């Protein structure tokens, strides 16, 4: 695999993400803050993020089998991952999303 020249971000393929939240609950807001921060810091433009309010689009939650709120679904690249919770555990989130960070930098 090609070694990335820009440590701290990935740019092999765009990440396709969906964040399901339930209205403006504190947990939802925290998750939105966290994912925005992680994306801005590590992904630059290499992601598509859609934030979905389950209250407004319950069919989508049904379609993607979402029961936990908040839930971040990584649709692409495979394997599919569902990150449940406020996404505050930054290292775990990045590992699950497959984001390489060069810790030495």
């Amino acid at each position: 695999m090609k070694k990335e020249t820009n440590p701290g971000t990935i740019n092999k393929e765009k990440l396709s993400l969906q964040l399901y939240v339930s209205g403006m609950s504190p947990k939802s807001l925290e998750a939105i803050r966290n994912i925005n921060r992680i994306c801005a810091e590590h992904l630059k433009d290499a992601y598509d993020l859609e934030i979905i309010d389950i209250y407004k689009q319950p069919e989508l939650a049904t379609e993607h089998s979402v029961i936990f709120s908040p839930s971040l679904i990584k649709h692409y690249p495979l394997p599919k991952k569902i990150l449940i919770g406020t996404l505050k555990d930054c290292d775990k989130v990045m590992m699950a999303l497959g984001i390489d960070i060069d810790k030495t930098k």
Partner: protein
Amino acid sequence: MKKLTSFPKTPTGINGLDEITQGGFPKGRPVLVCGSAGCGKTLMAAQFLVKGITEYDEPGVFMSFEETAADLSQNVASLGFDLEKLKKENKLRVDFVRIERSEIEETGEYDLEGLFIRLNHAIDSIGAKRVVLDTIESIFSGIDNLAMVRSEIRRLFGWLKEKGVTAVITGERGESTLTRQGLEEYVSDCVILLDFRVIDQIATRRLRIVKYRGSTHGTNEYPFLIDEEGISVIPITSLQLDYKSPTEFISTGLPALDNLFSGKGIYRGGSTLITGTAGTAKTIIASYFAKGSCARKEKTLYFSFEESPEQLVRNMESIGIDLRPLIKSKLLHIHASRPSLQGLEMHLLVMNKLLAEIKPKTVIVDPISSLVTIGNAFEVRAMLVRLMDTLKMREINSTFTSLTHNGDSQFTDATVDAVSSLADTWIRLTNDQKQGTRDRKLYIVKSRGMGHANSEQNFNITTRGIEFSEGN
């Protein structure tokens, strides 16, 4: 004192269960149905929803955590439930919740709000009155934060109550608890336990109401049956000794036999026991009863445990009793099955189902003695008592034959012992060998509430049937 009112109930649509629960499940409350794998939880839940739609016009939501919507449709199709049709009519929503442990990462605090919203959406979209959660415990296997799930499930049950839907929640049986995750702690209103046991290689399904707050209910274990029409439970022990006693006389089908009773026949709705050793013409007398009943244009149900319908018809033909036209005209229904095919309870259930279906006026069980091969004397007696009570309640004439092993010790035979005290009329047949010829005799041991011949009657079997000898 506060005025007592019985709280509203939701009929389950499950045969017999409404009787045991005196009206059904508590309306607008969660009900827990638990049991080990394969005991019929999902089917019971599905039937509750489907019957709710088809019989009580109450739409329902099925939230499945184990089977996909397609699998579920397929699995319940064997019971004659067409989920796809109900879905198209907007009466049913099936929502499959897939939880894949390997996909999930926990990254902070979360709740089950997604489940609430989905369920709420499904309920509101069709105006559902009934909800099934099958099996919600699957959530526990997907995640680590069990304390959160517990508190959320507690909240969910409270929410379902507020929503006013009657919910059936299924749970897998735990080792020392009713359900693995102790769901019974959260569902305090009604808990039903299903069980599937194999004893002596014969499987029986049983149901028991563990608790039902604020309602009286049957407390026994009730056997239940799953067949092409779904689940039926028979509340067999709710019977009481308060049946009517008709005073009308009916023929036994054999005029010469009628003459041995002072009333020229036997009472309607009575039970008759015919005992005798092998080859004493028990089945023949029983066939006369069948013929007599059909002659009155009354439906007759003949349970044959030893002969196939064809064999019975052929054998009776040889002595001039033609059963064929009676079968053709649907007056006579012969149900033949091996006793060992199923357990006693199942036989009783099948009998009850047929009684409800055919609505016969006369029932013949030939012979009850073969039931001993599948149960001990106590069980057989219990079953026969229940059967006889059921028949009495419905004013059905019943005839039982029983094989005894030798003429002298008739009282030691388990089934005769079981039934003889309950039977209204007892006819004993014997077959003595004297000077190289057979000497057939009929003797009326008892006949309640009427006079009867007190001597043994000699008879012969000819191609014209049974003929009593002159000069008895």
